[in-house]
């Protein structure tokens, strides 16, 4: 796979919620097979960036190119069908669906998606809880379910929002392993994180988001020299 082809490119992206102007010209690129992290303080605009890609905010201007297609004018479901898997910050597990119904909800977008067997091998807890109501699962299980849900579809670009948030350290480790497995399989990942320790070993590159803009770009090999700068902007 050619590692330098662009899979996602945002140019001068502005996004609004009603009257409030949240993204002020975001520019970023994610190459095929790359894992890129958006770091930033709470309220910086990282979640909004992911939501804007899928058309889930209010008005947007600028350009969003997914795998060669301009999507800024497309309805949400058509953007998703280009091969995007979204794992929202609030996890988005449906209470009116069972665990397995949650898992099977998103239509298959690509034949390369994981089979139900593979998913249950990767997430054995979900197999046990398959008939439980989605929201009866524990926080960790719900996060696994939200991840598993996008892996089954064969989406090649994963938008993952704070997947490590509020989870026990063992589960966070497990998630990190999964992300590494996914990278090996060639998935392209845009990861929003607060947890720098979690993100640092996984990311090929990082963007720092501040006030709805990209404030800095850091490559994996610059991490050590920029550590202080990062601690300052992230307030950790």
């Amino acid at each position, binding site marked *: 796979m050619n590692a330098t082809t662009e899979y996602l490119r945002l140019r001068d992206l502005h996004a609004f919620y009603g009257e409030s102007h949240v993204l002020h010209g975001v520019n970023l690129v994610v190459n095929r097979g790359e894992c890129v992290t958006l770091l930033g303080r709470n309220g910086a605009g990282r979640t909004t960036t992911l939501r804007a890609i899928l058309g889930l905010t209010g008005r947007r201007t600028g350009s969003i190119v997914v795998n060669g297609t301009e999507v800024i004018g497309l*309805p*949400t*479901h058509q953007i998703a069908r280009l091969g995007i898997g979204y794992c929202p910050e609030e996890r988005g597990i449906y209470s*009116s*669906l069972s665990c397995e119904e949650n898992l099977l*909800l*998103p239509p298959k977008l690509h034949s390369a998606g994981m089979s139900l067997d593979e998913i249950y091998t990767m997430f054995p807890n979900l197999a046990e809880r398959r008939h439980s109501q989605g929201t009866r699962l524990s926080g960790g299980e719900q996060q696994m379910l939200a991840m598993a849900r996008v892996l089954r579809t064969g989406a090649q670009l994963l938008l993952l929002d704070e997947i490590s948030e509020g989870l026990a350290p063992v589960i966070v480790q497990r998630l990190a392993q999964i992300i590494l497995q996914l990278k090996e399989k060639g998935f392209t990942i845009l990861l929003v994180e607060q947890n720098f320790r979690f993100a640092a070993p996984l990311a090929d590159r990082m963007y720092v988001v501040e006030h709805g803009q990209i404030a800095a770009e850091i490559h994996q090999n610059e991490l050590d020299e920029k550590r202080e700068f990062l601690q300052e902007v992230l307030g950790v």
Partner: protein
Amino acid sequence: MTEIFGIPIQALMGQLMLGLVNGSFYAMLSLGLAVIFGMLNIINFAHGAMYMAGAFFAWMGLTYWGIGYWWSLILVPLTVGVVGVIIERTMLQWLYQLDHLYGLLLTFGLALMIEGAFRYFYGSSGLPYSIPEELTGAINLGFMFLPKYRAWVVVVSLVVCLATWFVIEKTKLGAYLRAATENPRLTQAFGINVPLMVMLTYGFGVALAGLGGVLAAPAYAVSPLMGSNLIIVVFAVVVIGGMGSIMGSILTGLSLGVIEGLTKVFYAEASNTVVFVVMVIVLMIRPAGLFGKEK
């Protein structure tokens, strides 16, 4: 003759059956209202008008084009469904982000216009629609005569209601519907065409009302007012059952029909108000309705 509490069993059974027939209509209409409210966030005041239009389309089909009852059972709900889809595309789709009140006012206005139009052309006295030959007459059950058409109405509406429940609760399509009802934006972000589902849901909901109208045509007189008379009770049924529960609307509809029927036997003066009395009591004890979830 056998009597229960001094009431001849024949009369009791007759009223019970009538109650079940009314309850079938309540169930079918409140089911449609619940499905529409879940998906569109709109209280469809035009529901009664759609039911009335269903009855009129059946009458017009027969009178002008010789389309009989059996064909009407299929064609009329389809027609009403298409009318619903047009209403959704041209008007309702602009209201989803707004308060419930806007949808309610728009559909209320539509109901008045539709009823007004039929009243203008056909007057307000009822038009007759005869029972299809196959369903005339009654079956002697020993303890009562069961009119075939009444039994037919109850059976059809039960089958339709239960089939709807099954599709929503037990199938993949139903999972899409439940997901889109719970979180439409996220569901769309999974690649599901939610706007299309919303449109078809409205079409389906009013088609149920249209089917109710066809079933009602031979049972009651076809009149422009039949919808508004019924819809008031149906709204009470919805309040009692609680919005958002499919099985809840079906069970509440049927039981309130039966309660009404029994009241007619034992205390006829209260039969028109009993549903509202039940509504007040339920609201005092469970404000979200019998099957509703507290928010």
